[in-house]
């Protein structure tokens, strides 16, 4: 049981980190939503305050 959990989580973590390390495009792709979220937030704020973006 313990081995199963440790191996499964370790393998997934290793795979994810490997992808992140070896492929810069992945880093760009995975980080993009944090910017789009803020942009969207600004649009709503601007709409509420009556100004244009």
């Amino acid at each position, binding site marked *: *049981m*313990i081995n*199963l*959990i*440790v191996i*499964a*989580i370790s393998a*997934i*973590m290793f795979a*994810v980190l490997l992808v*992140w390390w070896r492929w810069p*495009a*992945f*880093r*760009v*792709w*995975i*980080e*993009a*939503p*944090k*910017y*789009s*979220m*803020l*942009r*969207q*937030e*600004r*649009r*709503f*704020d601007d*709409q*509420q*305050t009556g100004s244009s*973006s």
Partner: protein
Amino acid sequence: MTTVAQNLSAQNKRSNTQREGALPSIEYDLIRAHVFASLVTLVISVLFGILVATKFTFPEFVGGHGWLTWGRLRYNHTQGIFFGWLGNAFLAFFYYVVPRLASRPVLSRRLGWLLFVIWNFAVVLPGWVLVAAGFSQPLEWAEFPLVVDAFVVVAFILMVFEFVLPFLKARLSDLYVSGWYIIGGIIFTMLAYPVGNLVPELVPGARGAAFSGLWIHDAVGLFVTPFAAAIAYYVIPATTRRPIFSHFLSMVGFWLLFFTYPLNGTHHYVYSAIPMAAQKGAIVASAYLGMAVILVVTNWLLSLRGSSGTVSKDVPLRFVWFGVISYLLVSLQGSVQALMPVNRFIHFTDWVIGHSHLAMIGFASFIALGGIAHLWQRIPGTRYNERLMNWSFWLLAAGLTLMVADLTIAGLVEAQVWQSSAPWIDSVRAVGSYWLVRTLSGLPILAGFVLFWTSLVTGPRLSEAIASGTSREASENVVAFENVSPVSDKLNSTGWLSYAHVVAFGAGVGFFALSFLVLAILPGRELEDEIKQVAPVTMPTLTASEQRGRVIYGREGCAYCHTQQIRSLAADVRRFGAPTEPWETKYDYPQLWGTRRIGPDLSREFNLRPRDWQFTHLYNPRLVVRDSVMPPYPWLFDGSPNQPTQEGLDVLAYIQSLGRARELSGFDRQTLASTVRSDTSEMAMTSEPSARATPPAIPIAMMGGYSLSAPVLHPASDPDDLEEEVSRGGLLFAGNCASCHGPAGRGDGKASASLLPRPANLAAARFSDERLSSVLWNGVAGSAMPPWRQLPTEDLRALVAYVDSLHLPVAAPSTQDSTNLNVGKFLFAANCASCHGDAGEGNGPAAGALAPSPTNFHLKKPTQERAWDVLENGVPGTAMPPWRSQLTADERRALVEFVRSLYGPSQENSGQ
């Protein structure tokens, strides 16, 4: 990260413009409705909690009616927080944030109102009413009855349509982490809820407990945590106006949380009868969870770097920051307390209650409050009072800190007492002051919540606030995120990345299923096999009355103070008896193992105490145990302990059935080590050499079984020492004995009216030290007198000295003459010797079948009045009949003289 942003901004400007159509509408009315529902239910739930806490100090406080009894209030406190407060708060946040993250409105306003009505008027309100009326489910975080659970599932299905569908219509590859948490929380809770609430009703005992353990943790891990995390991930960047530190880390944390949370469940049952492989798996997963939380919190705190000024000024963000810190603390605490060396000590104590409050208030509630305060400032036409909000924060922070510190210390004190051989009630006495502080700490928390509510209905309106710039000051460190767009179509169309989230989602579902497989299904099969091999073929089932009593036991919340699982730990075994075996629970639908001990474990109540004691205790526990904090249950009686209703009879029948199967099966007389199995016992033997190796011959809590090794305790011979002993004995007597024997030892304590035989009038007889020592050591079988051998020897000696002192000064020399004694001796031999023995030693031929045993007159010398009264009226509740009709007054007088002459060593009196 800034470089990445700049690179992206250049290539994506055009595609951004295309995507930016009209903004989706936001259902502000639904937000307002859920916010107010959350605050109303929050205040009510906290009032329930304060009532529950108050009853620890004043158990009779509003305790005369079943609707306000401790157990039912406790159920409604936690369920109110879970569904009423947090559920509504999360829903309010969803209506605010889903359109922003998905760029689409929620599915339907009508559906939203239907969801609101179901959540509040088919779940929370009827749930509370049904629990208060006695219809509930005695399972942690699943207390609302099954009919309410059905509406909860319906509500989660509606949530999928209302909130998840808009996300699915959008491109998942653009989805911000808060959206992921919302999707994951809704879907996984929808799957886990029915399993955690329904399966323990269908799968009994230890096997059902494995499922219960899963849900206990899933309730926090799949409902509370994801939605609180969604709020934190949203409020932090929206307030600081800077992107989070790493979206990659946030997604790693997201999947790690969903992978590891469900695997934690069984850590609530460490050292239990659940197979050790499952227990250890849960402990390892708990350690992983701690690491995952460190990663998540690190990401949050790095996102706040350089924003200390904003955290200080912006109260909603400060709420979230406090929640983030609490999350780190409570998660690390959780990982540590799952470890066996810690768990064996603090489990079942108030430490765990402190942990729960740190999680539900410090983490979840603070973040939910931050989320509500954040969105409230952005709803047109609402008011917002920053000053009151600030006060609310500090009151809540102060109250929570005091509460958690107090409960943590109380837990350590309880654990320390439980490790000793002190009576259980000593642990209750030891933490009495801590419980009072806990109640008081609830007051600033309640005030904080009320102020929070007030701050949303007072102060300037939103439009004014924005105009004056009081509530939303832009940070000077704002990143030029408006230049950063969603990722390019090129990246999105690169192939496998488009499927990355699908793969991850599949993995999440896989881990969710894995948790049920490894923590519930596989251990369940193992338990089933073991039960088939070990369970006695003649194991009795519960009678109809006992079944009904079990339901009452569950509805009154008895399992929330009394466990029915003796763990494989020396301290447990020494106190309660042999560890609970899985087969003992094979008819328990649902399991009533419990996760907390305020009173002792009840697994071995069979033959433990007489019915009159039990009825008196149920009617009002303080009649027989002065310092008990157990609630009274007068609605189970018709006005007095002697008149139990059918429900009272049923619940006692159930309590007295606990441990019967084990006792009657002779299981403990068989060779324990040979067939019992298993990894649990192996583990216990490894880490607890005295747990199973030491036969639970006479656990502390058990009476019965005359022990020849009872020491004879003689009071001090030195007058000064004796005086001190008597004084101390008086205090001990007042604390432990006076409720039955009365303050002066005359057998007229509060409980005496309902006990049969009545407690002894200790002033109406002289007792030898040997007799007093024996009674204190062994109790009196057939009466309510329990053994007190768990008290230190010096305390027992002080009690002997005190009881000695109750006897009136020696009367004038007896005027007995030898003729009278001879008549008495003749009458005694003819009428009394069959029970009391030829020499009056209480060992006649019939004595072995009598309980209480006939009096040994060599060890007890009744006063003339008492002896006369006994011959006149007998002793109700014993085999001693009245002799008024069989013997003349002269004959009875002669008998009185004779039995009084026997006192003292039998050799000297044998010739009389």
